[in-house]
């Protein structure tokens, strides 16, 4: 009896876990099972394209932008220092 119950519970989980591809008024909808993932895997030459947008490229673009921003932040920090230096120079010249 307990075992039977156990089986049933397990079965329910199975049902909920089944992913589905559905059509909703002509919209194409992909559902993962509950608490399951949707994954896109590209091959060495195989791409995943969404309306001509390459998903892997999108990801690498985001990463590239992120590291460029880190560079810019460093440069911007240096520029803050310089601003103090300019203020100092300005006051010196005023006092000449």
């Amino acid at each position: 009896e307990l075992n039977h119950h156990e089986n049933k519970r397990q079965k329910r989980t199975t049902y909920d876990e089944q992913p589905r591809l559905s059509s909703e008024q002509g919209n194409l909808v992909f559902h993962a099972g509950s608490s399951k993932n949707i994954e896109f895997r590209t091959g060495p030459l195989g791409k995943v394209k969404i309306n001509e947008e390459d998903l892997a490229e999108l990801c690498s673009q985001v990463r590239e932008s992120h590291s460029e921003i880190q560079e810019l932040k460093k440069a911007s920090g240096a520029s803050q220092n310089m601003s103090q230096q300019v203020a100092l120079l300005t006051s010196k010249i005023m006092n000449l």
Partner: protein
Amino acid sequence: VYKQWIPNTNFETASNWDKGRVPCARDVVHFEKDKVVSVFVRSPYALTDMYLPLNGEFVLAAGAGFAAFDGSWDPGCDSGGTVRFTDAEQRSWFDPTLWQDVFSSGELKPSGRMFSVDEERIPCHYDDVIFPAETSFRVNTDSSQQVIHLRSISVMGQELSTPEAWAGYLQGPSALLQFHGNGTLQVTGTGCPDKSGCACGNAPDGPRICAALLRASGKQCPVPVCQSPLQPLGHCCGVCGATINLDFTPDFDLQKYQDRLVQELLSQPKYTGVQMAISKVHKAQTFLGIVSRSSTPLIQIVLIDDRAGAQTGTAAEQLAGDIMEDVAQHGEALGISSGKMEVATGSTFSRQRGSHTLSRI
């Protein structure tokens, strides 16, 4: 009682396709634009082209899916063509040919010596309904009743046996694709509370049930061998054999009585080939020939046999006689106050009637 829906809308069921086979890689697969459907997919398929309905779903079993067909390799599918998913739209809840009796496990119940009158081949108000796990389906619930009561419903491996669980399921993505029509299924979670049995409750849909049955078997009842066939309540076509109507007292226990009849009478070797149906039914009352709205409950026993020609129904008649004898002897203890028997055999020219009424103190 567990009743299982037989047809499915699975991708891999050959009969669901107009060509009688599952589409292969070179085929162009068409689901009709406006036909709503839920389709269970059990394995991976390579496809050339597949048109989906505007509303529908593909439920993917583990490992199932769709791949692009590269055109290179395709055994047993050299031609390719258009393959259409057939119409599941008209499969009616009230078609007796679409249900089978099963155990709670879903395992097919050997029909044995018992049968059901046609109305009771459809799930009754206190029955459990099973839509097998790993299958999709679509059922039309058009009904003369607004609400179709059931004890529980199992769908894709989950048993829903409370009104709340069922309401939750109805909110899910599949329910709207699986059930359509004006009848509303309602899960009560309660079995028949009366030990004398409960009427099935499908009588309001009787005409719908018989229409579906006759559509399936070719429009007309078979011509009976006996001249004046019996018309059991809840059954679509006349039968040869015997019927017994029993009036009962509060002591009557339907299950016990059925077991008694099976063990002590039906299982006797001389009754091999006799089949029995027994259930509580409501007989409309007539007063001066006018059908009244009220009805009385009674226990109806229907007996048929496999005898041919003039012998048709004679074994059933004999068993009916034994049952009446039993009623006469033990009726009071069994909770039976009176019984009426009707017989129609291949050798009789008119129905024979017999009755036994116990004198009540």
